[in-house]
Every structure is written in C-alpha cells, then in structure tokens.
C-alpha cells in the first residue's frame, strides 16, 4: 500500500502471476495460503517482543522472581512463588495481552491507510 510499486512476480510452480512480496504456500493441492513475507517477518519479531515483555512481567514486581523460578512454578504448579506467579502475575499478563489485542484491532478497524478517507465516519 505504501512505498514504491513493484512489478508482479511469476509463481515458479504454477506459472501464474502474484503480487510482489508474496509467497504462496501449498501444503495440500486444495489449500493455498498467501503469505506476505514482510508482514510475516514483522509478526515474528513482534511475537518475540511479546514473549520478552511477558517474561519480564512475570519476573518483576514487588519481589523479583528469576525466570527459572517462574518456569518451575508454571511447570509444577507449586512451590514458594505459587501465589505470586499463578494468582497475581499470570492473570494480569493474560488480561494485559487480551486488552492490548482488543485495542489494537479496534484502532486499526477505524483507521484508513495514510492519505485516504476513514472507513468509519466519525
């Protein structure tokens, strides 16, 4: 949508033309998934950032709990930090992530590409 227009690419397996920057996955002859390569790379990076943020959220607080101890508590469901990790921090992390997802999606669905009119009139 933004940036310079690129010529379409010829799909090597079928010989048909596809928009630039797209890979078509065919796990099965009846299934084809169009993958936008740049978006997939950005998504992988964001997932990594989310994992880092979640780990930090589980570790930091009034008392610091090391990642190894958090992992131990999650795996066994018991131990010294059971209350703090399972009852206080994990629910808060899940809630934060869900609310973030909701607000991100809602914001996007009310916003157009730059320079173009709003999808939802306000």
């Amino acid at each position, binding site marked *: 949508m933004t940036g310079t227009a690129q010529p379409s690419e010829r799909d090597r397996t079928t010989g048909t033309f596809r928009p630039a920057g797209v890979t078509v996955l065919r796990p099965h002859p009846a299934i084809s998934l169009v993958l936008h390569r740049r978006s997939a790379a950005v998504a992988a990076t964001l997932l990594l950032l989310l994992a880092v943020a979640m780990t930090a959220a589980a570790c930091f607080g009034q008392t610091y709990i090391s990642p190894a101890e958090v992992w131990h508590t999650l795996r066994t469901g018991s131990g010294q930090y059971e209350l703090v990790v399972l009852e206080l921090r994990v629910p808060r992390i899940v809630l934060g992530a869900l609310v973030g997802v909701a607000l991100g999606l*809602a*914001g*996007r*669905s009310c916003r*157009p590409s730059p320079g173009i*009119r709003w999808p939802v009139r306000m």
Partner: protein
Amino acid sequence: MLPFLVAGALLVLACARGLDALALGDETARALGHRVGVVRVCAALGATLLVASAVAAAGPIAFVGLAVPHLARRLTSGGHRSLLPLSALLGAALLVAADVAGRVVRSPAEVPAGVMTALVGVPVLVVLVRRKGTAV
C-alpha cells in the same frame, strides 16, 4: 468479557478485505463488489465490542488504539489481512511492556498502565500530526 472480545475480533477480521477496498474510496469499493454500508457497520460494531470488553476488563487505557495502528502501518506494506493481526500483536506487546514499566519505574509504588501507554502514545501522535501530507 471473553465472548464479546472474541466476537468483536472475528467481526473485525471478517471485514479485512472490505476495509482494503474501502481505503480506495466508496465508489471503487462498490465497483469491486463490496457492500460499503455492511463493511462500515461490521467494522464499527466489531470495534465497539472490542473496546467495550477491553474497558470493562482493564479500565481506561489511553492511546493504544490511537498509536498502534499507525505504527503497524509503518511496519508493513500488506493489506488489512496483515495489518489487523500485526496491530493486535503490537497492542498486546505494548500493553504488557507498559504494565511492566509501570511497576518498575517507581517501585514499590505502581504507575497505572494507562499512564505509561499515554507516555509512549502522545509523542507518537504528535509526530504523526505534525508530519505533513499524512492523514491521521
């Protein structure tokens, strides 16, 4: 809250193609075979459900919905089928990070996550508004 959140997310994701077409203008979207009114209503209804469940669960969180879509737009060139999931991921990462930051900066006191997101969101918004030739 979860059923409303899931319903809103599905509704918004379902009209991703419609939003792509709508970005070209009403007449073009109609010419491409999209029902413009239906897409608008679905997008607005989905967004309403999402924001309602978010506020009910966590209270007012400022500027995530405002700044995240613009950041996502800068990160990729894909259409809404890429943009919507990326906005969701970015929103989640930003909010969890803001929550941690709020707990760490004035420890043992806590800064609300909504204040932390505003601290990040306001500069982003100012940069976007000041940039010429870009609709906000």
